[in-house]
Every structure is written in structure tokens, then in C-alpha cells.
């Protein structure tokens, strides 16, 4: 039986001097991280209402929406609102566009003191009140056929909690991963891996600040998945380093690192390619709801692959990894 394998991506024993390039890579990484942090500090992120509190409502005008909606919304007292026309769902038979109005509203339940609503039983928060005001206002302006198709409101309090939870999620994941790696390898590996992960997270925040893509709850999920993916890569390389350290007792440390990266290179590339294939399909075909998420993931796969080669491994040199420590006694040498 003849079998074919058309592509051998790389020579069987690639000898790319990754470790020698570590200085250049290091400088590049530092520049990118600084740039990300500067962007974050100056331009900040385009937070979604998950994190700012606010209202997003989709309005159906029963016809192609009038052109002066932006002004009408501003007239209702919502100056900072975003107004955009969006296509209706494909599976509905609506032929005109809807209007999506987004409004950030951090204010929280301050109304308890000055209760100016006559309706005493409606304990309504500012977001709900804004939603009602928006709908009623647009109806008054454009007629009663105006309808709300869907809505999202997040109160200031809940958004604060979501912010906190998101940060907590990322930090606790990093800590738990560090503990696991320190337990399985040596502390230098744990520090190196987490350094690579922090690198990835910071660059992801940077790219979101740069592009102004909405930063919402699902992006937190994407970042945690990036953390998982990048770590996957890093652990594979680390595992090979551990193995090669035992195999080549005389080889200088930089050479061992370089050899290990090259050994696992074809796997690194293969997995990156297959993951990117799936993610690009998702980015292009997955619809609006997942675009930000898949963008973050695509970026994360690229950065994660880079960091496991150029950050995680050189960090071991920087941290002066020694031979003969706890390099995993549970596996037999062959």
C-alpha cells in the first residue's frame, strides 16, 4: 500500500537560531508592550455596556429608518449615544434596516433620594428609565409603529461587578496555572510561562485599544482562551526542553533551548495553522456576535505562538535555569 504525504512543511531537523534572535525579539516585545500600555492609558478601551453600564436597543421603524435619527436621539438628551443602521436577521422577511442605539450610562440607582416618579411602585434604575424614554421619544417623533426589537441594559452596579469578575478571572487563572507549572516543572518555568501569558494579555489589550473594537464580556472569555492556547504551546516547548536537558547533558543551555524549539517547531506551526483555519472561518462566517471574539482569538494565536518561542524560552536563560533540579522524575528515560 502506497501512501502519500504531500507536504513536509519543514526539514526534519530545522536549525533556526531562535535563541540568538532573542535580543531583537526582546526589544520588539518590550516596545510592543510599552506601546500597548501607552495606548491603554491614553486611548483606553472601547468598553461595551457590560463594563460601563448602559443601554443598547434595536429599533424597528417598519421601513428604512429616517436619516435624522441621530439628531432625534440627541434631542432626547442622549448626546453620547451611538446610532447605526444594522441589517435585520437573515431568517426574517424584513427588507429594511433596523437602528441600533447604544448608550453608556454608569449612573446607578441614585434616584432613591429624589423620587420624582409618580409611579411609586416602579423601582426603576436609570438604565431602564433611559430605555423607556428612548422608546417613547422615538415614538412621539416618528409615530407609534416604531417598535423595539431587542434590548440590553446593564446597571452601573452589575457592570462594576462584571469588571471586577473579569479581572479576577484573568488573574486567578494566571495564578493557578503558575502553581500547576511550578508543581510539574521548576519555578523558572512557571515564571517564564506566566511572563509569556502576561505578554499576550497586554498585547491583546493593546490591539483592542488600537482598533477600538468593543471590549465586552466575551473578550474576557477570548483572553482566557488565549491564555490557555499560549500556555499549551509553551508547555509543549518546555516539556521538550526538560527532556533534552536530560538527554544532552553536556550541551550548553542556549543550544538546548534552541534545539527544543526547533524540535517542536513543526507541531507549533501545524497546530497554529489548523486553529487559525477554524478561527478564520468563524471570523468570516460566524456573524456579528462572534466577530470581536474571533478577532481576539486570531490575534491571540499569533501572539501566543510568538511568545512561547521568543518570550517563554529565553526567560529560562534570564532566570538562570540550572540542570539537575526537579526536571520531572515521573517519566522514565529511554
Amino acid at each position: 500500500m502506497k501512501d502519500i504525504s504531500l507536504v513536509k512543511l519543514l526539514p526534519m531537523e530545522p536549525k533556526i537560531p531562535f535563541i540568538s534572535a532573542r535580543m531583537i525579539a526582546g526589544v520588539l516585545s518590550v516596545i510592543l508592550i510599552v506601546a500597548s500600555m501607552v495606548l491603554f492609558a491614553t486611548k483606553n478601551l472601547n468598553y461595551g455596556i457590560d463594563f460601563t453600564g448602559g443601554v443598547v436597543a434595536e429599533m424597528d421603524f417598519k421601513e428604512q429608518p429616517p436619516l435624522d435619527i441621530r439628531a432625534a436621539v440627541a434631542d432626547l438628551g442622549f448626546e453620547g449615544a451611538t446610532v447605526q443602521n444594522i441589517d435585520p436577521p437573515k431568517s426574517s422577511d424584513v427588507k429594511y434596516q433596523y437602528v441600533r442605539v447604544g448608550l453608556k450610562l454608569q449612573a446607578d440607582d441614585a434616584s432613591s433620594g429624589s423620587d420624582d416618579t409618580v409611579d411609586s411602585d416602579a423601582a426603576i434604575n436609570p438604565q431602564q428609565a433611559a430605555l423607556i424614554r428612548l422608546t417613547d421619544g422615538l415614538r412621539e417623533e416618528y409615530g407609534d409603529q416604531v417598535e423595539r426589537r431587542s434590548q440590553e441594559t446593564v446597571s452601573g452596579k452589575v457592570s462594576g461587578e462584571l469588571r471586577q469578575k473579569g479581572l479576577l478571572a484573568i488573574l486567578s487563572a494566571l495564578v493557578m496555572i503558575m502553581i500547576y507549572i511550578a508543581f510539574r516543572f521548576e519555578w523558572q518555568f512557571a515564571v517564564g510561562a506566566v511572563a509569556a501569558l502576561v505578554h499576550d494579555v497586554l498585547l491583546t489589550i493593546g490591539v483592542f485599544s488600537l482598533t477600538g473594537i468593543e471590549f465586552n464580556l466575551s473578550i474576557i472569555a477570548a483572553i482566557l482562551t488565549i491564555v490557555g492556547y499560549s500556555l499549551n504551546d509553551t508547555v509543549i516547548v518546555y516539556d521538550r526542553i526538560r527532556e533534552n536537558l536530560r538527554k544532552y547533558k553536556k550541551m550548553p543551555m542556549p543550544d538546548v533551548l534552541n534545539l527544543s524549539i526547533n524540535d517542536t517547531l513543526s507541531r507549533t506551526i501545524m497546530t497554529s495553522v489548523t486553529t487559525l483555519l477554524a478561527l478564520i472561518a468563524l471570523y468570516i462566517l460566524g456573524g456579528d456576535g462572534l466577530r470581536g471574539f474571533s478577532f481576539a482569538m486570531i490575534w491571540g494565536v499569533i501572539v501566543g505562538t510568538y511568545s512561547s518561542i521568543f518570550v517563554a524560552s529565553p526567560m529560562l536563560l534570564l532566570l538562570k535555569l540550572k540542570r539537575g533540579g526537579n526536571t520531572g522524575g515521573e517519566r522514565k528515560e529511554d
Partner: protein
Amino acid sequence: MLYFSKWKTITILGLVALGFLFALPNAIPKKKLETWPPSLQRTINLGLDLQGGAHMLLEVDLTSVLEQETENLRDSVRGALQEAGRIRTEYLRVEDGAVVGKFRNADEVNAGYAALDNVPEQIDPRQLAGPKDSRIERVGTDRFSVTITDEKLEAVKERTIDQSIEVLGRRIDPNGTTELTLVKEGKDRILLQVPGAKNIDEIKARINKTANLSFHLVDPDSFNAGAMRLASEGRMKPSQAFYLNADGGGGLIVERRTKITGECLKSASEGLHPERQNDPIVNFGFNLRCTRLFSELTVRNMGQQFAVVLDEEIITAPRINNPITGGNGFIEGGFTLQSAQELALLLNAGSLPAKLKIVEERTVSAELGEDSINAGKIASIIGLVGVAIFMWLSYGLRFGTIANMALTINIMLIMAALSLFGSTLTLPGIAGIILTIGMAVDANVLIFERIREEAHNGRPPVNAIETGYRLSLAPILDANITTFIAAVVLYLVGSGPIRGFAVTLAIGIVMSVFTAVIVARLFTATWLRSRRPKALPI
């Protein structure tokens, strides 16, 4: 590594077959599925963002309930002091959630403290031998502070939330036909999910109304202009209360205390006025106890007015012309048929023990959900095909096929697990599956690369495969356990759709390790045994 005993092979294949069986219902049209045995009818539960519906997070206003509870305690303290021989206090008020007071006369202090010990416990019918309700502290020589115990506070909070959930369920789904989700979330919140909901504003109106109904005798002061003016500024006797009319025209002073409340209602229904057929009304029937109370009240107060108060507004204030002894009556008050219907529904469901505030709300139309599912399906198929072609190109027909079979089984097992656990598939969850498609081959790639390497180093085929599998195991486990940690963290701190993503990711990790390390190895071993190749086609 490459030897599989017979029972092991059977177990593995059996698991895969079971996976197939449980994944299958998802591919069968709903109509046909109904004829299957019920244990096989389980399909993947779609999240609200995929099937459309309303998701709301409601905050229960516990502060006002606790305030009320403290006021009740103050009344009990006052009562106890009265009963013990009219012991007078200089002041008795609520301060920082405690009832504080000071005795006026030094010679009454001891009797006063003794009386405080007899503050009646409020008996909670649900708790037979409950903990003590209040704690009494002496402050200085003649002052005291009475607080509600923490246990009692907890009990009150819990009861308030439980009751709110019960009432909400009856209000939003009176016929019990919708698959509502109504659960407590965190300390003081309720999660409400209504799949397929279209009438969001109607649901909101039902949440926003507490529907506190009570019947009060109208105080004669209502007909005294001076007293009315003071009352509208909030100044009146402690035994009185002032409520505005619901239709906006003035108000009435009524007796604050009443025994006829919403709890008296046995049933309510909308109807038409017996004489004026165009006026919608709400009919009600009292339970036995209140029938007696109400009959006594009407007999004693013939010719007077009583006010029907709903959520601190007077709906109507009819005069008692005849004693009402049958326990049935109706409320009129300028209803439309729809508002009468709505009020009857609220009254039947009971009143909410506390106000509810919508702190988070997301609605998705069913069409948008359908769009998302379709987009997800297409993206998955394209992703799957792309990855499969790439694997064939990279590892050749033989090993490419093994990897792709493993991948297909992997997806199938994820579907089976999702159906079996009844976990919910959300939009981010679909992203999780697509991501798994890309990452699932990782374990196989690791193994194949290792085999390739070992073969290149001169090992004979069987030995190379054996070594490849053995040496890949540790890195595969390490890499997947760390990702699994991320998924667990995501589940623990995430909410809603994010949790759905975490679940699919975690299931995907477990299944991909199982398929790559065990199922694909079985295939490889079987192929090796049947062919005994001299060189590896990899």
C-alpha cells in the same frame, strides 16, 4: 502502548458507539424524534442567545423589607412596655437598624428591662423551633437597644427571595406552560429567563408591580378640609394613613390598620359590572377567615366608606350599603378589559414581598438566534473541512485519515456530552466548539510529529509509533490540564453565555485527549497489526 486487550477494545468502541447514539438525536428532525424512546430524545439545550428570549437579572430590595421588620420590632417593644403597666419612655425609635429607647422614670427601669425580655417572638409558620428573633442590650443605666438577630435576618431574606420567586413564577407563567428559569443568584438577586418571549414590556410590568392590596375604612377626617391639608403634607395621627387616588383626583385619609389584605383573596377574575355592562371590573372571593372578618366589618360600619388600596393608591372607595357576608365582591375603578385582566392575574399570583429592580436585561429575537446557529454551522463545517484537508496534506492518507476520524469522533462526543448533561449551548459555546476543531488535532499532531521524528532517527515502524505515543503523553496531558484550568476558572467566575463557553471548552479538552490518545491509538494499532508495514507512510 500499542497492545489493546479485547475488553479494552470493546470498551473504547462501546463508548464511541454510545457517543454516536446520544449525538444522533440532534441530527433528527423534531417530529420524527418524538416517536423515539424518551431516554434517547435528549438534544442539546440551546441558550437564550440562540433560541431567542428574555434574560433578566432582578435585584430584590431587601433593605425595605428589613426596615419594615425593624419597625415591626419597634411596635412589639412598644406593645410589650404598654402591657407591663404603661412603662413610659423618653424616646423609642429606629436607629441604624436597631430599636433604641430610654426609660423616662428611674423607678420603672427594672420593670422595663423585664418587660423587654417578653417582647413577643414573631412566629414564622415555616420555622417551628426557630432561633430567637431579637437580642436585647442594656445601654447605660436607663437606655436599651433591641436588634434583630442575624439568624432572623437571614431567614427573612431567604423567605423574601423564595416568595418573590414563587410569585414571579405565577405571574409570568400563570398556566405553567413556558419553560421559565427562575433561580436565586448571589445574595439578593433572581435570575429570570423566558425563552421565546415576545411581550417583554408586559413581563416587565408584571415584575414592577408589587400588587399589595388592602381594604381600609375611610377616616371621618377625610371630610375635614384642615385635616386633609395636613395629611397631604404627611402630618396625621399615627393610626391614620393618607393615600392618593389612582386616577389622580385627590386622596383620602384611612385607618392605617387593617386585617383585610391581599392574603385574604382566594381568587380573582375579570368580569363586567352587573348593572353597567360596559364597565370591566375585577371579581374577588375571600377565604373563610376573611369572609367572616369582612362581614363583621361591614355590619359594624354600615353607611361608611371603605377604600380599596393597591400599591399605596386608592382604586375605589365605595360606601357600605348592605353587609357583605358572602365573601364575594368586585372592584370597579375605571378599568379597561385588559387592565382588569392584568390586575386579576396579579392578585391571583399574590403580592411580591419586596420591590424588584431589573439590573441586567438582555433580549434576543428568535430570528437573530437562528442566524447565529446557521452562521455557526457553516463556520464549523468550513473549519472542519479546512482542517481535515490540511491534515491529509501534512500526514498523508493513512495518518491523515486516522487524525480526521479522531476529529470527527471528537465533535460527535462533544455533541453527545452536551446532550447528555443537559448543559446549554450558547453563542460563545459554538465558538468554543469551532476552536476545539482547530485545537483538537493538536494532540494528534504532537503524536505524529513525534513518530515522524523517531522514525527519522532510525527506529523501525512499530517501535517508532510505540515511542511516539509514549513520549507524547506527558506533554499532551500537561498542555491540556493547563487549558482545562483556564476553562474551570472561566466557569467559576463567568456568568451566562461565558459559562456555556467554558463548559464546551472543558468538554472539548477531555474529548480531544480521549480521541487522540486512546481512540486514534486503537486505530493505529489495528492498522499496524493488519499491515505490518516496513516503512512508515508519514
